[in-house]
């Protein structure tokens, strides 16, 4: 009896092992990182699998995790909504490059009776997240929203509990508009929050806001839209109240772009630009051999990156992400072309 069970286990195990190793040659890439573009990536990768039979396993563990797993060479590519700063680049054993994939907006979403459309000024936003404005019927909010009857509710701040590029974009914005925030909290993927409670992932924050009346939090635009949550129009540097949308994000990205594409779009100078927006990048080693990839895998990755920045872009708008502008796409192409394997360039297959 027992022998039988053992034989069964052993048989199953060796079977799974054999099929497993025989499948190891099949095309598969592993990536991890930002939750911000997760819905878009999961769509793109699902289409890419249909078109080319390459499985891309992307896990949205947060931008911080994506960067660290890439540093540890545990994933083939990382993804982040915050670019790695000069200090961070030094921690990598070899140079890496940032390839922009899309731009998105971080919206202030809230749960109030009647779902009013709020207008928020920079000073209200920093006041709420610094814990100075604690009630929805605060005079400052009332002044910016004269047409809305504000409920007598406490404001509950929801923030991310995990390291996140969304948090980086949002705190980068707050640091630019509020000196006090800059001094007290600063910018980062994970922060020491003055108020509020944490939830894991964009999805966790959105879920929490939906559950708690009086809650406000920051999430990626698509999470707010998909869940029919209200979000605020935000006053930008030119004094206009701008609704987050594909157009206002594209407008925000209409600024001078550097060649390595490591650029922040928050508090944009563009007149019609939504001020809390940013690119999201895929991160890979400049020489893919340094990332521990085989030559074949490196070529697969290049094909994927090209596809994502070209054919894949058409999936962006339907999911409320801003597709790359022509200028940004041109810069992305140049970056992809600069990626090598063991010092030698890889093939570019535009029609792939």
């Amino acid at each position, binding site marked *: 009896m027992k022998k039988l069970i053992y034989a069964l286990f052993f048989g199953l195990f060796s079977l799974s092992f054999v099929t497993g190793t025989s499948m190891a040659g099949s095309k598969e890439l592993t990536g991890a990182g930002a939750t911000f573009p997760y819905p878009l990536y999961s769509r793109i990768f699902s289409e890419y699998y249909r078109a080319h039979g390459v499985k891309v396993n992307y896990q949205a563990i947060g931008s911080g995790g994506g960067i660290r797993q890439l540093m540890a060479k545990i994933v083939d590519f990382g993804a982040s909504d915050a670019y790695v700063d000069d200090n*961070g680049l030094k921690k990598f054993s070899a140079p890496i490059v940032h390839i922009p994939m899309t731009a998105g907006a971080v919206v202030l979403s809230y749960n109030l009776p009647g779902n009013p459309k709020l207008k928020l000024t920079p000073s209200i936003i920093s006041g709420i997240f610094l814990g100075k404005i604690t009630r929805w019927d605060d005079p400052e909010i009332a002044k910016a929203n004269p047409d809305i009857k504000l409920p007598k509710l406490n404001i509950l701040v929801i923030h991310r*509990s995990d390291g996140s590029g969304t948090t980086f974009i949002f705190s980068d914005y707050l640091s630019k508009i509020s000196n006090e925030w800059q001094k007290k909290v600063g910018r980062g993927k*994970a922060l020491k929050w003055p108020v509020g*409670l944490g939830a894991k992932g964009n999805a966790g924050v959105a879920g929490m806001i939906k*559950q*708690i009346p009086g809650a406000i939090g920051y999430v990626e635009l698509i999470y707010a839209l998909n869940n029919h949550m209200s979000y605020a129009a935000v006053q930008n540097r030119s004094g206009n109240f701008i609704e987050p949308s594909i157009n206002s994000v594209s407008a925000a990205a209409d600024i001078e772009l550097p060649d390595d594409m490591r650029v922040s779009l928050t508090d944009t100078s563009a007149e019609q630009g939504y001020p809390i927006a940013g690119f999201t990048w895929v991160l890979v080693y400049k020489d893919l051999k340094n990332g521990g990839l085989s030559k074949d895998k490196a070529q697969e990755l290049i094909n994927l990156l090209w596809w994502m920045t070209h054919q894949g872009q058409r999936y962006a708008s339907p999911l409320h992400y801003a597709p790359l502008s022509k200028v940004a796409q041109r810069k992305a192409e140049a970056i992809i072309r600069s990626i090598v394997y063991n010092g030698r360039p890889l093939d570019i297959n535009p029609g792939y």
Partner: protein
Amino acid sequence: MKGDRLFRIVLWIVAGLFSAMMVFMLASLLKESLPSIKAFGMHFLYGKEWNPVVDKFGLLPFLVGTLITSVLALIISVPFAMSIALFLGMFSKGGFWPKILGYGTDLLAGIPSVIYGFWALFFLVPIVRNFEMKAGIVPYGVGIFTASVVLAIMIIPYISSISKEVIKLVPRDLIEAGLALGATDLEVAKDVVLPYCRSGIVAGILLGFGRALGETMAVTMVIGNSNSLPKSLFAPANTMASVIANEFTEATTTLHLSSLIQIGLWLFILNAIVNVIGMLIIKKMEVK
């Protein structure tokens, strides 16, 4: 015989390997904690601040969160667990209802942690939130209290099953003698059974406590994940286990990661102490 010798040698090797594994486990945790131990020293233990932006890490908020949730869970669960233990260990003489109760507690112990969390998120959290709204407290719904209630439900079967076994160790003669002398069940329970197995019950509670300390998923899902010192029983907080679950894959800096592993190290040590003491007490009782 040759086969016998070989078999015994293999047994000793496996035993040796197992011991080595435990030592290596502690050593790995220690080694990976070194950067954080070097950077903060003892200050890590009472540091109030957990701030990844400036790479400053202190354990205190999570230690406090862990201890409060676990102690509160014990306070809630002990009356229930002891009732079950007395009922099954002393009063019941078999039959339908005791069997149902026995089954029920076994099933309660078998439900996975993540399902407790999932259930609590959709059932318990709204109830607590309603209560908080009526009580005029900030209605998070999630927080220390909710986590403690979930933990309490989860550890009841542990405490009750150990206590039940311990109560069963009380010599039947003693109980019969008490009853024969005209004592009521209550008096026998209070003056004979409980004094006889006090240390065993303490051990059972200790093991339940150990289980609450290390419980991760259910707590992570309902505690609110706030990294500052909790201000009230209803405030969001984090426990040592939940902060690891939240931040381990996301930590970017070496110091952040190493601090998380150091929390794991302390959790390992804390649990080892609690468990070993509990087990030693029970061993001693069984010998008696």
